[in-house]
């Protein structure tokens, strides 16, 4: 474990989906450094020391339920759920195969549903829970070659808002973070360095988002400082979409 600080996150039990890479890994490490007990769900092993790794396909119901059961057995509770697990396979609309459509929705949207449901089963009886779901700027703006991805991320907004209303009276807060392009392996797998650089010029604050930017917003939404914030979408995008 990293140097645990005395703070409100110390001892909290957190589950991060997509916890082995990109924003999820940064978030897992941030919470670990605050003294939280962090469980990362992913298909790739975690490289973060001190984060408990569970190999999980988040779109598989039995797989998800088994992982949450195991966490419940070892930790006895879940305080935070952060959903980051997602896939992005760019394809122009007429070349978009039903398989890629289904797989994107299965991981990016059904995966969130399954993990939220499993977490809420534990959060409701304990009358405490904080959930942050990662959507994307393209949920609002749309974009080329990403109809399936945008649809899945738009679905996340509807899911989050409904869950926020349904869970608020039980002291469970659900919010969203919508990043713009962030410097992670996901966009770098499909964009060249030049393309990454050209994206920067479209962002008013003049830089690509970092995983730390997203983790800062997520940590705020998990903390007591956001006690009156629920059902909201934090658009951490350097000013590139103001709606």
């Amino acid at each position, binding site marked *: 474990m990293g140097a645990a600080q005395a703070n409100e996150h110390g001892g909290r039990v957190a589950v991060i989906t997509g916890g082995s890479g990109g924003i999820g890994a940064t978030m897992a490490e941030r919470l670990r450094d605050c003294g939280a007990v962090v469980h990362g769900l992913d298909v790739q092993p975690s490289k973060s020391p001190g984060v408990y790794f569970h190999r999980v396909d988040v779109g598989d119901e039995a797989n998800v339920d088994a992982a949450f059961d195991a966490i419940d057995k070892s930790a006895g509770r879940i305080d935070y759920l952060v959903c980051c697990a997602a896939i992005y396979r760019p394809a122009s609309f007429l070349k978009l195969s039903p398989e890629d459509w289904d797989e994107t929705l299965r991981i990016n949207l059904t995966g969130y549903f399954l993990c939220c449901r499993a977490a809420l089963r534990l959060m409701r009886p304990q009358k405490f829970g904080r959930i942050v779901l990662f959507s994307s700027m393209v949920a609002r703006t749309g974009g080329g070659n990403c109809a399936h991805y945008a649809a899945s991320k738009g679905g996340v907004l509807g899911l989050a808002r409904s869950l926020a209303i349904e869970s608020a009276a039980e002291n469970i807060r659900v919010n969203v973070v919508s990043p713009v392009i962030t410097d992670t392996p996901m966009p770098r797998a499909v964009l060249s360095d030049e393309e990454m650089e050209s994206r920067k010029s479209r962002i008013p604050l003049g830089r690509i988002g970092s995983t730390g930017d997203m983790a800062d917003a997520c940590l705020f939404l998990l903390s007591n400082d956001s006690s009156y914030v*629920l059902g909201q979408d934090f658009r951490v995008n350097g000013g590139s979409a103001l709606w």
Partner: protein
Amino acid sequence: MVASDPRVTVVTGGGSGIGRATAIRLARRGDVLCLCDVSATGLKETAALVESERGRVLTGIVDVRNQGQVRAWIAEILERFDKIDCLFSNAGVNARSTVAEMTLAQWSLLIDTHVTGTFNFCQAVLRSMVERRTGAIVITSSDFAVVGVPNAANYCAAKTALYSLTKSLALEFAPYAIRVNAIGPGPIDTPLLRAGRTPEEYENARRAFESRLPIKRLGQPEEVAAVVDFLLSERAGFMTGQLVQPNGGQVIW
């Protein structure tokens, strides 16, 4: 912990409610507070609370609608502290009426105080922020920037204008690394919520809010102050032009 070079933060409407709670919170994190209001009594009370947190405070009786007064006070702050790091443009009033019965004075009071007042303050502080290529501004808009409500057309129009102003400022000043965001509080237990309502009307309104809100309670000014603190800080360093709504789930779109 107080930084060796503390931030200098201007708060308008610092004499009560959200402005007061924010001043106290920012004093605890070491900011030098420059507070203005039209209420001398409220201002004095907030200043005493800030000082009890060992905060440094400068106060000014300023009518935000008066550009000359605003410029003179900002000049005084710059003269004294040499910089302004943050502005929380928060001064507000209310004058409830149906549109049919609304006087021009009721309309103008809200537009001038909220919209022109914020324009005056932003223009005054941005000159020095641009020179230093740094700064953060938070503007108090409202959930009513997004939805309409009866008996508050002046308030809704003013708060929507503030959201638009926020977005334009954000884009205009992003190249100077200056961030501008708005907050859209829901029903917060402040003097403004009571303004224009009899005690009985306030109680009825409170009950109606609480039953309708997903979170089933009014918000406290300190809960909004925490959001303002976040948006002014580097933790929100990649957020600009956004409306962030501490509103108990009242409006979630």
